[in-house]
């Protein structure tokens, strides 16, 4: 800082020194002057005490306006922050409610699906049971091949191609008897 700059604004350099913002060379020059300049020493003392009062007065402002100041926005913009929060809260509640309803419907669907699966399973079981041919009945009764062919097959046999060999076996057994 030049002598002219110091004379124009003596407090600026003192502030920079107290704040630790002076470059090293300028700091050393300042401290050399402090060795013999009582007025400069008192200026340092005054700067510290004055800044203490400023810091104490800034404290309440920090909690209310700091974010707005950071972005160089007008303080009035902070009015919309609580409004935005309420809106987001309501939107979140609606989303949660919609999700809950969707999940409930899904649960019902899943229950229906479960019932359908169980019914299908039961059908398969019945067909399996139906597949259990009463062989004794086939042996004890005399049917000729035409009568046997005329017999209406049971539900399970009708749909099960693999049971044809049993039918053939019955026919063969009857043929042997005859």
């Amino acid at each position, binding site marked *: 800082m030049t002598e002219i700059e110091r004379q124009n604004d003596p407090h600026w350099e003192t502030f920079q020194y107290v*704040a630790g913002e002076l470059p090293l060379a300028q700091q050393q020059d300042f401290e050399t002057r402090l060795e013999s300049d009582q007025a400069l020493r008192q200026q340092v*003392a*005054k700067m510290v*005490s004055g800044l203490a009062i400023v810091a104490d007065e*800034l404290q309440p402002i920090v909690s209310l306006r700091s974010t707005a*100041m*950071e972005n*160089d926005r007008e303080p009035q913009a902070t009015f919309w922050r609580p409004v935005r929060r309420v809106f987001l809260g309501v939107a979140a509640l609606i989303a949660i409610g919609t999700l809950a309803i969707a999940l409930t419907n899904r649960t019902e669907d899943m229950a229906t699906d479960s019932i359908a699966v169980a019914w299908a399973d039961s059908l398969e079981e019945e067909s399996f049971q139906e597949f259990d041919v009463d062989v004794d009945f086939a042996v004890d009764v005399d049917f000729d091949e035409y009568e046997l062919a005329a017999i209406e097959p049971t539900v399970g046999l009708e749909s099960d191609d693999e049971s044809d060999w049993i039918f053939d076996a019955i026919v063969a057994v009857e043929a042997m008897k005859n």
Partner: protein
Amino acid sequence: MTKSDKIDQPHSNPQGYSIENRIDIEAAYEEHARSLRNFLLGVLRNESLVADVLQGTFLKLMQQRDSIRDRAALKSWLFQVAYNDAIVVKRKKAVVVKHQEKVAWRSDAIRADPLSPADRTLHEEQTRFVREAIASLSPQQRAVVQKRIYEGMKFREIADALDVPLGTVLARMQSSLKKLRPLFED
């Protein structure tokens, strides 16, 4: 006789000094300790070192008070001794620089000393002035002042945080200090 004139002068002396014309240590401490502490905080920016140097200064005063000619020279003497000791400490201990407080003026020591009635009145006036000065700052200036003086951020950090050039930050700070100038003057 006021507190600040508290020097024993039982015998008049053409030179204004006698063997019993001794500096009252307690009175000297009451008058100068606060200002001296603030000065040392500006130099050292370390509260515990400030306390050590301050104590050492008044200890030397007790030991050398006979060499002090008069009250007018006392303040200058105290500041000189305190500064010499502070610089020795500062240049010896590199750790001082590392542990310097970011915001020396927020030290609790500044607020620890009780204020005399006169000092309390002055403090109230200064507080009122500061409130008005801060209210007169633009939002941009106030943002810089708050970050530098209250939060202790460096100017470069403030420039990054506010996303403005460093020169702009310095200009805002300097113009804000000009509004606070009466606070820093005698």
